[in-house]
């Protein structure tokens, strides 16, 4: 009787209930996040061989200073920088256009531009691998052929293949970023524009003095996720080249390097050092970028 009462008290307890509700997260956090993070830090100081683990201090990090890793670092950085240049200003402008009073068929265009985001990177990769094919009759070559250009081996040239990767990213992510900016625009109070109208502000003035400043939080958000997305890019390159080995490693990314060492060559220690480097890198960039944009100063 006493026991039964205790049990039913448990079911009604408002003190215990919240812990029950957050339990799935706590378990998953401990097993699939905290432990792996801890473990990857530890492994990065070890040489992990099957059945044998040796502590080797900073050796893995020293080994990171090699041409292949530096190349992957450079590729990821260039890719991230280029995608930021394309995928922030263009979707922002398009969102402003799409949101303007004079635009027609808004929902239709928004949906169409969003459709590429539905495709998996694998399918997108297959499509763009074919579009950027080296054959004379391949899609892009036949298009530039119309304008009198020679066919190019797009995926065999470092500069051109980076171009292909950025085009693929633009295609896939433009609609999502556009959506973010549209959502941000809808949160700007209409009265601000009306007030600007009363003051006789031009369209450009309204854009620079009202729209851009008020979109700042959403722009920072898009910026941050784009940096993370750029530096963790892997599948796009994997698909465009048909595997993780591009000619001369021109499409190798940091995650590609992590995958190559950790999974393909089963060198978990060294791969972990690559992961930690990536973590530190994205973290530092985000901090710098957040402080530059004044996020830490005057947010209420």
């Amino acid at each position, binding site marked *: 009787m006493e026991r039964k009462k205790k049990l039913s008290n448990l079911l009604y307890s408002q003190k215990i209930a919240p812990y029950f509700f957050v339990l799935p997260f706590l378990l998953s956090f401990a097993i699939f996040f905290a432990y792996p993070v801890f473990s990857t830090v530890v492994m990065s100081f070890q040489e992990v061989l099957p059945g044998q683990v040796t502590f080797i201090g900073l050796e893995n990090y020293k080994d990171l200073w090699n041409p292949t890793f530096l190349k992957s670092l450079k590729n990821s950085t260039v890719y991230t920088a280029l995608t930021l240049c394309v995928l922030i200003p263009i979707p922002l402008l398009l969102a402003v256009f799409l949101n303007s009073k004079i*635009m027609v068929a808004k929902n239709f265009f928004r949906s169409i531009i969003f459709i590429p985001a539905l495709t998996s990177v694998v399918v997108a990769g297959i499509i763009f691998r074919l579009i950027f094919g080296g054959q004379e009759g391949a899609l892009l070559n036949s298009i530039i052929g119309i304008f009198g250009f020679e066919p190019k081996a797009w995926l065999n040239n470092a500069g051109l293949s980076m171009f292909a990767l950025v085009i693929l990213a633009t295609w896939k992510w433009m609609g999502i970023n556009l959506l*973010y900016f549209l959502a941000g625009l809808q949160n700007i109070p209409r009265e601000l524009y009306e007030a600007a109208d009363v003051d006789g502000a031009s369209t450009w003035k309204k854009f620079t003095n009202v729209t851009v400043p008020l979109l700042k939080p959403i722009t920072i958000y898009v910026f941050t996720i784009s940096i993370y997305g750029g530096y963790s890019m892997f599948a796009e390159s994997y698909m465009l080249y048909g595997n993780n080995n591009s000619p001369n490693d021109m499409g190798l990314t940091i995650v590609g390097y992590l995958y190559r060492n950790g999974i393909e060559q089963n060198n978990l220690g060294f791969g972990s050092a690559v992961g930690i480097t990536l973590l530190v890198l994205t973290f530092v960039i985000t901090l710098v970028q957040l402080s530059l944009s004044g996020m830490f100063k005057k947010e209420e």
Partner: protein
Amino acid sequence: MQTKQRKRWKISTVILLILFIVISIFALFPLVAITLASFKPSKEILRFGLNLSLQPEVLSFDNYAFIFSGASEYFIWYKNSILITIISTILCLLLSCMVGYGLAVYDFKFKNLIFGMVLVVMMVPVEIIMLPLYKLTMNLGLMDTLIGAFLPFIVAPIPIFFFRQYAAGLPRDLLDAARVDGSTELGIFFKVMMPLMAPAFSSMAILQALASWNNFLWPLIVLKSSDKLTLPIGLSTLLTPYGNNYDVLIAGSVLAIIPILIVFIFFQRYFIEGMTAGGVKG
């Protein structure tokens, strides 16, 4: 004055319209191109690459016929993807909803700390913990199993975040009313609050299903045998240095997009709500 203004508006509308039509072509063109290509013999693709030349005499359904003949493992991958998508989406929504609800509705000691942990998980790129997760999955005996392909990510931060926001907006009076009626806390959640969160479920379900259907890196690491692969991983194995199986690859890609496209056409609103949930704070 009035007419002049209206005329100028019209011109700018036309300019915008043209701009958006061009961008729409950019968005749709690759999908149209691959759909056209799927009706061409794969030899043709191999020789000339993907192109837009439409020769009705070579149009064929051979690629689709080959896939549907069952000679390739395509439909096994399809089945695996559907299975994983359904199971992982249901589990993820149920668990994330519980967590989000717990964080929103109750006041308890470690509430802010736990929410902080959710944000940390959101901020750390998952690629970083792939290797220890790989080791862990191996030790748990889950390598090359469908469960291993989704288990580590079954409690996801973005749905938690979304459900927390949503649950915070629900009327608290209902909680007290249900308590007075003698409901247990769990009963309140399942019978009273969860039904109220139905709209949140719709948008998160669609988003989660999309993410699961298209997931790449983790299944690539976990799944090995060809009858265990998901659709994206299966397709990616067809691209090899020794030649590409374009017949399955192209028609298979088209078939992989179609279900999502159909869902999107019917549930656009929920897609868009779900997508923007993480970025915009009301």
